């Protein structure tokens, strides 16, 4: 395990690795999302209470999971970056933030589209919705903060500190439906005594969740490549200036 981390710590080695892995990740993502969408839209029963609107869940729930998974992985990367000064962790955390913000936005928007016919309102300020909204704001703060520094190295450090600070929000999001009386329903898939959701609905949900996970991998890899290319370009530019 340690060897892999050391091997990928070299940015140019990682660039080649990312270039080779990226197409596979993209293909897996497309397969999962297409099969998941087909199951979700055509091959799963409508809910006895919510009717057809339940199909929004197949996008909403995986997006909300990913919003938290991306932040969690950013937290791990931030620890790597602060403790071991891992150069790649900086880049990956920087590239994760926009993807995480997008997933959070998708979860918020689809949730409110689902909420209008089901709850009768676009938005309520209950604990789950508010904490996810705060997560979105923290993502945006991270994106702005990291790019505010002229020195990329300092920006990444600052972003890591902010990520660690904002990590308090993750348990609040997860347990908000248990700690407070919320309009949002409590967890039905990830809980101690097994999922309380029928298999016909579970299949598209899990497929979409994996699809979104590979979406994250694919876009993380391509974002990281862009970032590395950008830095290399900058170095070449400076070199050229020195030569002249």
């Amino acid at each position, binding site marked *: 395990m340690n060897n892999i981390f050391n091997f990928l710590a070299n940015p140019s080695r990682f660039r080649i690795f990312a270039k080779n892995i990226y197409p596979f990740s993209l293909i897996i993502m497309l397969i999962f999302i297409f099969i998941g969408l087909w199951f979700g839209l055509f091959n799963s029963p409508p809910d006895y209470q919510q009717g057809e609107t339940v199909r929004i869940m197949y996008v909403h729930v995986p997006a909300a999971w990913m919003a938290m998974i991306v932040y969690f992985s950013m937290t791990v990367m931030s620890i790597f970056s*602060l403790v071991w000064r891992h150069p790649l962790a900086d880049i990956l955390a920087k590239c994760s933030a926009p993807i995480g913000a997008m997933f959070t936005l998708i979860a918020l928007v689809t949730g409110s589209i689902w909420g209008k016919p089901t709850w009768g309102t676009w938005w309520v300020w209950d604990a789950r919705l*508010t904490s996810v909204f*705060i997560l979105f*704001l*923290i993502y*945006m*703060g991270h994106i*702005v*903060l990291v790019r*505010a*520094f002229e020195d990329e190295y*300092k920006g990444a*450090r*600052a972003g890591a*500190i*902010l990520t*660690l*600070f*904002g990590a*308090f929000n993750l348990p*609040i999001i997860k347990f908000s439906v248990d700690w407070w009386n919320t309009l949002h329903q409590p967890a039905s898939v990830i809980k101690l005594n097994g999922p309380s959701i029928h298999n016909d609905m579970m299949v598209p949900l899990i497929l979409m969740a994996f699809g979104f996970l590979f979406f994250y991998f694919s876009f993380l890899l391509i974002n990281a490549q862009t970032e590395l290319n950008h830095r290399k370009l900058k170095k070449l530019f400076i070199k050229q200036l020195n030569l002249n």
Partner: protein
Amino acid sequence: MKLFFKLVFRDIHIVIRGASDAGAAILFYLLAIIMFPLASGTDTNLLTTIAGGAIWMAALFASLLSLDRLFRSDFEDGSLEQIVLSGISLEIIVLSKCFAHWLTNGLPIVLLSPILSLIIGLDFQYWWILAVTLLLGTPSLTLIGATPAALSCAIGKGGVLTALVLLPLMLPVLILGSGAISAEISGLGGKGHIYALSAIFPISLLISPFLASRSIRLGWE
């Protein structure tokens, strides 16, 4: 410990001599509260319901304004560096600065709150819960704000960016603080909110000195 109080006294001295704009933040707090009745109409019933939230909002913005300058002047003229070179750990310095900031900014906010609650139309029987939530909340606001304030020093420019990073982190304090007041007014009892609010303080006391001093060091790298 002696050095800690020496540092605190130094910061308070600076404030008293008027070299810092902590007094302006308190004035801003008063002004912001007066804005609420002027903006939302002087209907007493409406004012009673929004009073707690209005005072909390004003307190949050007042500390936000003054937090931007928590480390800035000492960081820019190099005195922070000199204090660190004298052998005191940066975490202690951060704590002393936060304590001084709370004494000059948080404490006046708490002390003024019963009078202001009269102006804005909060029932006088609820003044104590307003004071308790502010007493528990303002130290947390200062401590939570220390890290973004230090980060803004490291960037070299502050202002909007600090607010953008800071506000989402401060929201839980605001929610619990004003929630306690509205829960008490509605008859549910604000104790639950107050317990949660008082839990935030020790947690931020543990975490923020380390993250804030890490951020200051980032500016020196």
